[in-house]
Structures are given as structure tokens and as C-alpha cells.
């Protein structure tokens, strides 16, 4: 299978695990999408370094875009790439992040170090925060 096919499959499987296997239903929660939005910005930055400097290179046979050129960086945007990286990397990343968070939350629900919960931030007093956790 191509990277494109595998990446789509990865996203589908991660969503199926979230909704129907672990039943954590993270993709129905803003508590997932807001952190994901933050993570994806940093993914574009760090993966942009890995792909823009050709630390990781790709074969055009297996992605929507062209192969990483031998000389110089790949396109910054367009040609199947976003911030130098193949768009497939966004799907790969989504699957990795969602799967990781699903397992983390699933373990918590099973009682594995469910507590202590996160928070409060150091600038908040514990008493005023107790209601929100």
C-alpha cells in the first residue's frame, strides 16, 4: 500500500478505536480538539524542520506529491505538501496523537493512576480551582 492509503487507513482506525473499541469518544470533545489544534501548529514547525532540511525524505511513488528533491528543499506549500511535509504526515500525526490520547484516557477510566488530576495552574489557588477539576 502507498503512504497515502496507509495514512487514510490509520486515521479511520484511530477514530474507530476511539468511538467503538475504547469508547473514549475523544473526537466528540473540545478537550481533544483544542489541544490537537495546538499540537498541529507545533507539528507543522518541527516536521517542517525534519522535511524542509531533508532529514526525512519521501518517494513520490507513494505520496500525493513528488519525491523530496536531491538538491534543495521540497515545495513549502502545494504539490501535496504543507510546510515542506507531505499532507499524509498530517494524517499520520493525527492517528498517532489520537491513538495515544485514547489509550491514556482509557487507562484512566480503568483506574490506572486516574488521579491526581491535572491542575490547578500555579497562578490559581487550589480552593478556587477545585470546582473545575
Amino acid at each position, binding site marked *: 500500500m502507498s503512504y497515502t492509503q496507509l495514512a487514510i487507513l*490509520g486515521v479511520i482506525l484511530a477514530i474507530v478505536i476511539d468511538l467503538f473499541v475504547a469508547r473514549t469518544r475523544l473526537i466528540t470533545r473540545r478537550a481533544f480538539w483544542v*489541544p490537537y489544534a495546538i499540537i498541529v501548529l507545533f507539528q507543522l514547525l518541527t516536521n517542517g524542520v525534519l522535511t524542509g*532540511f531533508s*532529514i526525512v525524505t519521501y*518517494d513520490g511513488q*507513494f505520496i500525493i506529491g513528488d519525491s523530496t528533491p536531491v538538491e534543495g528543499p521540497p515545495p513549502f506549500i502545494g504539490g501535496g505538501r504543507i510546510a515542506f511535509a507531505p499532507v499524509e504526515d498530517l494524517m499520520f500525526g493525527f492517528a498517532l496523537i489520537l491513538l495515544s490520547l485514547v489509550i491514556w484516557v482509557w487507562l484512566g477510566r480503568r*483506574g490506572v493512576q486516574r488521579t491526581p*488530576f491535572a491542575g490547578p495552574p500555579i497562578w490559581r489557588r487550589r480552593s478556587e480551582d477545585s470546582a473545575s*477539576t
Partner: protein
Amino acid sequence: MTNLSYLAVLAFILLATAWLEVVLRTRVYQRWRRLLLTLIVPVVVFVVWDLYAIAAGHWDFDPNSTTGMVVLGSLPLEELLFFIVIPIASILSLEAVRSVKGWPVGDEQTLDGQSGGER
């Protein structure tokens, strides 16, 4: 670019998220047993994917930007570390937002409905 380039990117990700544990009290590293157990699944799944992709030629790594250390026959050490570092950073982000916003994540109660839990 040096042989440490890829490792430097991973180190940046760890450092850029570590402060969340202290300032937002994410308590992710504090719950290290839950964290280690969590990592098993993405590490196994994505190492298998990576080994397949390398064998099939989907992607490759610049020998001048990686240490050259390899695990499981063909997997650069950096890739294995990637599948540890990214889940940690993701969980820290999840718990950081929860710390500030207090939105439900899904583990506020155990499956049998009890609100208590081991510490």
C-alpha cells in the same frame, strides 16, 4: 545539519512541553506508570508501520542528519524516540488544556461510575 539534527528536534519537543508539568501541574510525568503503559500501544503500532514504510521505500533518512544508530534491523533510533516523545507531548497538551479550562476528557469517573481512584 549535523548527525544530531533529528535528535535536536526531539529534544526541542521535550523541552518545549516539559514546563507544562510544572506551571500547569499537568501531573503526566508524576503519573509515570500510566504514561509508560500508554506508550506501549502507539510505540508498537507505529514502529510496525515505520518498519513497513522503510522496507517499502515510502521514506528514508539523511545519514548526515541522524546518528546512524538503528534498532530492529532498519529503524533509526530517532524514529523509535519519536514515537515516545510525540505521545508524551500530546498527553501533556491534553492535560495542560484540562488544567486551565477544566473541560471533561472522559476519565473523570471510572467505568463503574465511581468518582474515587487510586493516587
